[in-house]
């Protein structure tokens, strides 16, 4: 059974029957004069796969880094409550080049059985035979799979992912989508996936949040069956909704004042 940070239970009433894995309230972040997040509230349920969509500069990475506790140099206020075991996947695999793959996977993992668990995690992502390779000997997709193994080996209650497939080629990305969804269904962490790819969000997530200019503009629940088919009309409808919320379907001139003449 997952143990939660004690602050969570003291944090006041929880909406409905929701069992939260993350609760963010009144979050504000600024870079200089520019306010990147404006009084953001967010609750993620346990075991829920949420995608955070937004254009570049919308504040989605800032929000993720705040939840991950990596923004100690940023100015801001607000309260963030998270579970004890949180993992983070970066856009680059961020494997340490001087550690072999297995040592990278178990980096920071306590306990005697760490290596065994690391091997099991590598098996799970299909890298069972590469545990003693150097990171640079792996392909880009394999490196990212090793990074996934590193993030899952600690059995996180919350998995944060910052555009984890952004640097991969299209075919590898599709395979990684399947792998991530499969791993999610087996381990059931709450997932917060930051992406700017609408198809990726609809393929993977059960809930999609759209962030624009520092606040949420859409909170969409997807009731799509497993093994999602992009040809499914419902898939297409969600896709259109999200693209609309991102402003991708409207006339460019209304969105970008510089273009107006």
């Amino acid at each position, binding site marked *: 059974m997952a143990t939660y940070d004690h602050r969570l239970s003291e944090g006041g009433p929880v909406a409905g029957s929701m069992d939260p894995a993350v609760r963010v309230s009144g979050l504000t972040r600024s870079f200089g004069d520019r306010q990147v997040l404006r009084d953001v509230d967010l609750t993620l349920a346990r075991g829920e796969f949420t995608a955070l969509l937004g254009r570049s500069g919308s504040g989605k990475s800032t929000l993720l880094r705040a939840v*991950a*506790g*990596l923004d100690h140099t940023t100015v801001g206020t607000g309260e963030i409550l998270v579970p004890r075991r949180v*993992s*983070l996947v*970066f856009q*680059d695999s*961020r494997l*340490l*080049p*001087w*550690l072999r793959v297995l040592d990278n996977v178990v*980096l*920071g993992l306590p306990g005697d059985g760490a290596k065994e668990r690391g091997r099991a995690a590598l098996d799970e992502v299909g890298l069972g035979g590469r545990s003693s390779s*150097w990171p*640079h000997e792996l392909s880009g997709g394999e490196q990212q799979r090793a990074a996934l193994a*590193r993030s899952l080996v600690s059995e996180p209650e919350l998995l944060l992912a910052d555009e984890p497939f952004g640097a991969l080629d299209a075919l590898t990305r599709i395979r990684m989508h399947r792998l991530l969804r499969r791993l999610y269904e087996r381990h059931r962490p709450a997932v917060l996936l930051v992406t700017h790819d609408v198809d990726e969000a609809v393929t993977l997530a059960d809930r999609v949040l759209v962030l624009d200019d520092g606040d949420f503009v859409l909170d969409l629940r997807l009731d799509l069956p497993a093994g999602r088919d992009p040809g499914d009309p419902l898939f297409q409808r969600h896709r259109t909704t999200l693209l609309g919320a991102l402003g991708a379907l409207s006339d460019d001139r209304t969105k970008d004042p510089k273009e107006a003449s």
Partner: protein
Amino acid sequence: MNLDLTSRTGGGTATVTGGPAKAPPSSAPPAPAPPTDAPAPDTAAAAGLVPATQRRLGRGKSIPFGRLLGPLLIVLAWWGASAAGLLDPRKLSSPASVVTSAQELWVSGRLQESVQASLSRALLGLLIGVAAGLVLALASGLSRVGDAVVDGTLQVKRSIPNLALLPLLILWLGIGETMKVVVIALGVTVGIYINTHAALVSIDARYVELAEAQRLSRWQFLRKVVLPAALPGFFTGLRLAVTAAWLGLIVVEQINATSGIGYMMFQAQQYAQSGIILVGLVLYGAFGFASDALVRLVEGRVLSWRRTITA
């Protein structure tokens, strides 16, 4: 897909004679007849196509023992010039007479004695200097207080050549062994410090972020991230330090030494024995070369995870 660039295998360039396309010369393997829709070489040329060529801008394969080649060429030139009578033997002895001098020194036991005295001096200075440089680099690279105290001091020291400190060191420590080892160690310390410190403070911020995300303890962060990341810098410093140790050795052996290679050379100068002077120079060169090769070897083993242009 079936673009048949026969001009590459045929070796000939496409001709634009306007005549019927011909098969390339007989050097082509006895392949089955090319598909009829394959463009003939002259069509390829007309389309602006050229044979594919490989371009390599890296440095290519390394030559085994290639580093010895330069020194060997110099010895050969020296040998040739001596044999041809181009060199005055009183100014520069021939390689043969240098070998003879070395044999005589060996038989009398002076060679071994001098080498041992010089080597132990250099090694002791090197060890003390490396240890001091490492401790200082870690102190200033890992803590803000250490940085404030140590870094400025070492940067000032860096701009004062060791030779400028000699009068003071002789005043303090006399002209004995202690002074000699201290001079060598001082030169070594600076090289180790500058490079290790630079590597420690320029660790990729992404790796620091990873360590934070993985909840590493301070000690784990040091052991798994900081120290391995600083090792390349340390080895750069070590190679400079080895050179600095030999340089320091040569300087201190000119000052009232009673043993060592420098002393042997100084005495030979008194009696105009250019052969012995050359033996000393060759020894200095050989030690410098061998020690650098040794450091490179260890570096290659320890940093085997690195993939650089030298690979």
